């Protein structure tokens, strides 16, 4: 059995309804894209979870290196001036 070829892994994305993003919901194995979409529909939308399915071969996803997440993402933490609350304006201005 261990000599069986591996059936590829796919990542599944579902859009809950029009107007929202597709969101990663899980993964599954399927021989090709058509079967992957079908299986994703069967497994991940049994309770009206969405109206659109994307599947992507897991090996085709390019992701940031988790061991470099500090240098990638920490610098944003000390840039408070990118947020509106950093700036003082008089209360009388109202909503801005």
């Amino acid at each position, binding site marked *: 059995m*261990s000599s*069986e070829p591996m059936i590829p*892994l796919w*990542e599944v994305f579902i859009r809950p309804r029009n107007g929202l993003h597709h969101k990663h919901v899980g993964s599954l194995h*399927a*021989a090709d894209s058509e*079967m992957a979409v079908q299986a994703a529909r069967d497994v991940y939308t049994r309770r009206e979870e969405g109206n659109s399915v994307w599947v992507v071969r*897991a*090996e085709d996803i*390019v992701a940031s290196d988790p061991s470099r997440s500090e240098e990638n993402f920490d610098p944003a933490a000390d840039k408070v001036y990118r947020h509106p609350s950093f700036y003082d304006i008089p209360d009388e201005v109202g909503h801005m």
Partner: protein
Amino acid sequence: MYSQGLLGANTDTDETEDFLAAFQARIDAEEKIEPNDPMPAAYRKTLIRMISQHAHSEIVGMLPEGNWITRAPSLRRKVALLAKVQDEGGHGLYLYSAAETLGVSREQLTEELLSGKAKYSSIFNYPTPTWADIGAIGWLVDGAAIMNQVPLCRCSYGPYARAMIRVCKEESFHQRQGYELMRKLTRGTDEQKAMAQDALNRWWWPSLMMFGPSDTDSQHSDQSMKWKIKRFTNDELRQKFVDATVPQAELIGLTMPDEHLSWNESKNNGEGGYDFGEIDWDEFWRVVKGHGMMNKDRIATRKKAWDDGAWVREAALAHARKTRERKEAA
């Protein structure tokens, strides 16, 4: 790369005291651990064992109930049972996927189940001779599973926690349909009432065993609690289940098969809880070690399904290859 799959990746860690302390600090701060994060080898190993056992349980768990789909007494019961068994298959998939993020392949997991190397919940090694067993499974077995699974939604390992959130959302109907079925039987003929009571008599103790060995005998509990894989001990969860379930039985006129069952006001820090009789741990270990009534049958059924499906897997891969080649040639 770096997404979900870790197959073939080097997961070795240099487990210095600093490394372990830093990992524990992340856990203590309630940070979730994600697939590619550095983690102690034992944390990875514990999770693979737990999640794969859980996945196997969902898959093998389809068998005792699948047995009754064609003989459900009404269309309403049949669609419910069909949907429930389909859910269990889905739950197996979510869990296998979560285990795979830790670097183990689906093929390997399947092989471990079929060879008997991996364990699954012993409860599924009991037979389902009557229709009332379907009610008892939904009410008690799914009830006990939910008790276990709700705290796992806060497990420190992200993919496991996310899988459990989905599972818990779907599982609530499983328990309710089982209880409804039992209630209906208790309101039926004397024979139907007796059938419900008989099913409860057979399933009550095995359900209590689902929470695993007592805390004094559990090999894995301490470290799993420290790593926040588990949030409650086996005995704590078992007590919660007893306290929740005894009144449910009373409400539909069924009697728990335990002469030592009694209300104890001082339990649960004065909130009260039930004292209950001693679990037959010899039976528990006998079934875990493969000598339950259905162990051989369950694995033989899974193995047959796997072997009978070999040509389908082969054909699907061949079709995929041909389509790809045709596309490339065009």
